[in-house]
């Protein structure tokens, strides 16, 4: 039998991590408990974060919004601050897993799992999210792109915990677009996903573009080259087709049970064509 701990404060957690450094940490359990049952986690103890209030909720801090790592997807979907300032995150959360998965799973869990197919990752990359990492007597803040190192790999060290996500409010973007291609609508692991935030002028010119693709590389793929190919141009079929060709070379997908490499590459480009819907 594994001991299961439910600390109520971060201080209790630091103490536990000190005493049981080998314990596996989980919040919603939608990834860790699946791996545990499959025998992929052999830790002798489990620490569940769901009762630590400090890790939960959305705090509006003026220019920034702080999201506690153990905030569930359902809570985020219902949050007026997230709805107002980060519609692209709402779009991605709406297609993450299924209703019960969204009731249980947390934003911090999605990031620590660090799957290239994690649905919140592409929106958080284009929003230039930062994460907060804490340990017994210290804390640091780093860009999400430096936190996630590869499939299932993060820069978290022993005794460290992802405690929150910070997003800067920005009025820069008037187009927020997320699309995920999967084998079905619910409970689908993305085959390819695209997050795009654009600033489009009244005349239809793209002033600023930030793009990120999921499931087509070891982690989220960004491409300055594709962004530059859009910036300064009017949204048109021609502009998007050229950017799509560049995108197909920017991604580095693999073959797996869900889709082939060539299909993923094609779709990664073609998803850009959907931006024609935002032409003026």
């Amino acid at each position: 039998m594994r001991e299961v701990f439910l600390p109520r404060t971060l201080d209790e957690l630091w103490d536990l991590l000190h005493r049981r450094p080998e314990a596996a940490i989980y919040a919603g359990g939608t990834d860790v408990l699946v791996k545990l049952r499959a025998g992929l986690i052999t830790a002798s103890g489990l620490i569940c974060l769901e009762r630590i209030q400090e890790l939960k909720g959305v705090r509006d801090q003026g220019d920034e919004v702080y999201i506690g790592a153990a905030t569930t997807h359902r809570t985020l979907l219902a949050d007026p601050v997230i709805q107002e300032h980060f519609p692209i995150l709402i779009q991605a959360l709406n297609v993450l897993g299924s209703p019960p998965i969204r009731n249980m799973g947390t934003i911090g869990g999605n990031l620590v799992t660090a799957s290239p197919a994690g649905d919140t990752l592409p929106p958080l990359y284009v929003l230039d999210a930062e994460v907060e990492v804490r340990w017994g007597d210290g804390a640091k803040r780093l860009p999400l792109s430096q936190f996630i190192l590869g499939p299932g790999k993060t820069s978290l060290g022993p005794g460290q915990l992802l405690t929150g996500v910070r997003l800067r409010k920005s009025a820069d973007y008037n187009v927020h677009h997320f699309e995920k291609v999967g084998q079905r609508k619910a409970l689908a692991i993305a085959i390819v996903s695209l997050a795009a935030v654009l600033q489009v002028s009244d005349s239809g010119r793209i002033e600023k573009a930030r793009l990120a693709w999921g499931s087509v590389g070891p982690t989220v793929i960004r491409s300055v080259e594709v962004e530059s190919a859009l910036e300064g141009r009017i949204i048109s079929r021609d502009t998007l087709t050229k950017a799509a060709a560049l995108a197909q070379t920017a991604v580095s997908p693999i073959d797996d049970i869900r889709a082939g490499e060539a299909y993923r590459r094609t779709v990664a480009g073609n998803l850009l064509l959907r931006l024609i819907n935002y032409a003026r």
Partner: protein
Amino acid sequence: MKINFILNGREIELTVPSDIRVVDLLREELDLTGTKESCGSGECGACTILVDGQSRLSCLMLAAQLQGREVTTIEGLAGNEGRHPVQEAFVQAGAVQCGFCTPGMVLAAVDLLGHRPDPSRAEIREGLSGNLCRCTGYQKIVDAVEMAVHREKG
């Protein structure tokens, strides 16, 4: 470990291994076999229960997490006046084929109607999208939830 929680309206205290899954606790220890297990990995919804009124997957929760919570399984849904309106609608609509997914479907629908009392058909489908019916009897299941909505509105 010792845990205390409310199960189907009754306070209970149990001594259980802290890492036993909630689905196993319900089915094997408490004989509440209305909660089903199919995939065991969060993809099918058969093991759905309500925890503090929200649908949760009992295959992805450990017994220790129930401490202090209020749990409703399909066995506890009917009140003294008989079936819950969603259960009644499932009967009236003939929304049951083999029945294996039914407890999870009913509880998912109860959660949905709890926070969205007047859903569109599309919203019902979305609300039940975490629950698989391998008889593929979805039409009548969605009909049943629609029926429950209309009955509630009178």
